[in-house]
């Protein structure tokens, strides 16, 4: 089976690892070979968390620079930072609501304009799907469901060998019972948002 390589980047605390887990469980349910790798390290201390998820027959669990088929970014400047994982055929999906690092407040760096970020990604990759995922997560009922909103957009893009049904089932079995309804709503909102862009 063909290999599809997905990178997810996020800031510690945004629920990247749970999103990866939902994808992994959905692959398991669908009998699709899957391997994942993640760097936990300082995740809880506000650093960057990167997950690599490889669907198909490849054995490697990590993804080299330039070799991601799809990049999902939970934070726009982190999506831009991860462009080294992309090539001209990569599809990029990003939340556009920024979470500036504390270094910006200290005056050590300047946060780029969102439309500059979007233009950069558009110029260098095949396709960009971008929207305010925080807004949709709040609409779904919990700002923490940003991760599932983005999964909705990812599945709508139809790059992964996974169906919306398998993801919904994985959401039901993997996420906390109290949040399943919110997460299913978040998934749908992300799915619809990706259709519009």
């Amino acid at each position, binding site marked *: 089976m063909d290999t599809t390589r997905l990178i997810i980047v996020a*800031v*510690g605390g945004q629920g990247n690892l749970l999103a*990866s*887990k939902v994808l*992994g*469980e959905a692959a*398991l349910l669908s009998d699709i*070979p*899957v*391997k*994942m*790798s*993640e*760097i*936990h*390290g*300082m995740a*809880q*201390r*506000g*650093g*960057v968390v990167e997950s690599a998820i490889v669907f198909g027959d*490849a*054995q*490697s*669990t*990590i*993804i*080299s*620079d*330039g*070799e991601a088929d799809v990049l999902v970014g939970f934070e726009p*400047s*982190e999506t*831009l*930072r991860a*462009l*080294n994982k*992309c*090539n*001209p055929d990569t599809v990029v999906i990003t939340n556009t609501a920024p979470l*500036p*690092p*504390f*270094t*910006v*407040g*200290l005056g*050590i*760096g*300047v*946060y*780029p304009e969102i439309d*500059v970020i979007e233009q*950069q990604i558009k110029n*260098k*990759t095949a396709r960009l799907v971008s929207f305010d995922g925080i807004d949709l997560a709040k609409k779904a009922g919990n*700002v923490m469901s940003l991760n599932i909103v983005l999964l909705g957009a990812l599945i709508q893009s139809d790059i992964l060998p996974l169906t919306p049904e398998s993801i919904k089932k994985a959401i039901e079995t993997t996420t906390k019972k109290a949040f399943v309804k919110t997460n299913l709503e978040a998934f749908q909102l992300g799915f619809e948002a990706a259709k519009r862009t």
Partner: protein
Amino acid sequence: MHKLLSDNPGQKMLLLGNEAIARGAIEAGIAFGSTYPGTPSSEISLALFQISHESDLYFEYSTNEKVALEVAAGAANSGVRTMCMMKHVGLNVAADPLMTLAYVGVTAGLVIVVADDPFMFSSQNEQDSRYYGKLSGLSILEPSTVEEAKEMIPYAFDLSEKLKEPVIFRTTTRINHSTGIVELKQIPQRVVKGTFIKDPMRCVTVPAVSRKLHAKLLENIKKAEAIADSSAYNFTDGDGSWGIVCNGVSYSYVTDAVKDLGIEEKVKILRIGFSHPMPAALVKQFIKGCRKILVVEEGEPYMEEMIKVFDQEEKLNVPIHGKGDDLFSRLYEFNPAQVRQNIATYFDVPHTAPAMTDLSDVPEIPQRPPNLCAGCSHRATFYAIKQAAKGMDVIHPTDIGCYTLGFLPPMAMGDFVICMGSSVSSACGFSQATDQKVIAFIGDSTFFHSGISGLVNAVFNNHNFTLVILDNGTTAMTGHQPNPGVVMENFNLSGNGRISIEALVRAMGVQHVSLIKPYKLKKSIAAIKEALDYKGVSVVIAQETCTLFAKSLKQLKPRAFYVSDKCKNHRECITTFTCPAFSLKDEKPVIDPDTCVGCAVCAQICPENAILPLKK
């Protein structure tokens, strides 16, 4: 029920590498586990800790890795299958018992899991622990995938019992923190109690005994080598004449690369999973069938050097390369593209690396270094010390934990750190060899781990420095494990002893001991000033529960603060305190109410008293 106790053979489960190792241990019937937590190994012990609450498995967080291995040595010499896990640098701490336990051996399986961390994602060095195999004479097993990690653990226990000595199970971060689909096997009955049978000629290592035991160990290495030669974990793929020898995660990268380059017919791969002792006969046979050989291994040229020795012994003169300027580095971890490129270069295979995106015009993106959490009491303590030591030329030896992050600006309080416990002992050296002020930092768990002996040394040799013990009531960095000073009821456990750091420090003879509550800034600064004025060893114990831990225990009911319109934009809160709850909005400080935990330290810093609690 814990998911790793699922007694449903054939079930497929998505598991983290560390969970797969823990499940492998359950399938091997282990009844005893000991550890000191350390990334990337921590989730193995977390799983066993949780499982021990609902089964007859005994598990303990030991004080340090040396203690953990000695505890394990006792259990495994009583006929109980035991696993002891640690990160790579932990094995340095446990090296003393390891070297002589290799002589003494065990009566039931003992597997020592050691997790190396190439690239140092969360470590202070990237040592290659395979050399501990050579140093100790013990066998080493190394899995290449998550699935194999689970399968290999029961094999490791069988091997340990066959050789009657511990077996080292070596992983790297990309095994520990990768996730894959594994198939569950049966869970055997655990043997939880055994008997220690006295055997002084094996167990009491006086010189006359050890002389015999060393000879026995050398015999055992020969036995192990014969097993390695026929082990199913040392195998070949393909039958071409281009040889590739690889181990661990490199095997996956090599497999993908050979397929991508379309050279399956030309290549023969030797995958080494049983890497100490190296399977000499198998490797020699492999060399004979190759025109040239590439060795793909992260870290040191451990296999490469051995393979060159085998080649020389057989006078085969086959070109063998691995590490080198134009090939693989001894630095950091590998990746699939790099392995593909080096295979193509070495065997002269036409290969054009995929075009990279030109990133030269991407605007600079602000860095996002990790930071102490909002409400972290370490930040408050650092701030208080900075005020108390104003104008002094201070050296800050620090230690391993969240508080190492204090070295970042604007605190910049962390000048020297080499290993667990080094803050206290290096402070002795700094204070004696300079006229600078020395203020050292150590966390509660690290203090128990290896700070105590340094402090005894400081009192005995009458050194002159202040040690700040940052007691946040847990081992925070590795995910909130217990340590000998914590309240075990927080872990829903009872019956443990609890050691008071204050009583311990006083009993050691420290004459100036003070306790501070770091959220109370004024009092803390005053107490620290007194400690700094004291000539000799003074200890400040800063007590406040880790904010993340308190939140998870629901002991913390955050009441957020906000920046009121009294703010005159001095930005002391942002520039000197750097709490991540702050950001700038329209060029003025604002507090994110979802992040703020209400520690109120910023409110005590603000020169305008502009930071106020939000009304409920």
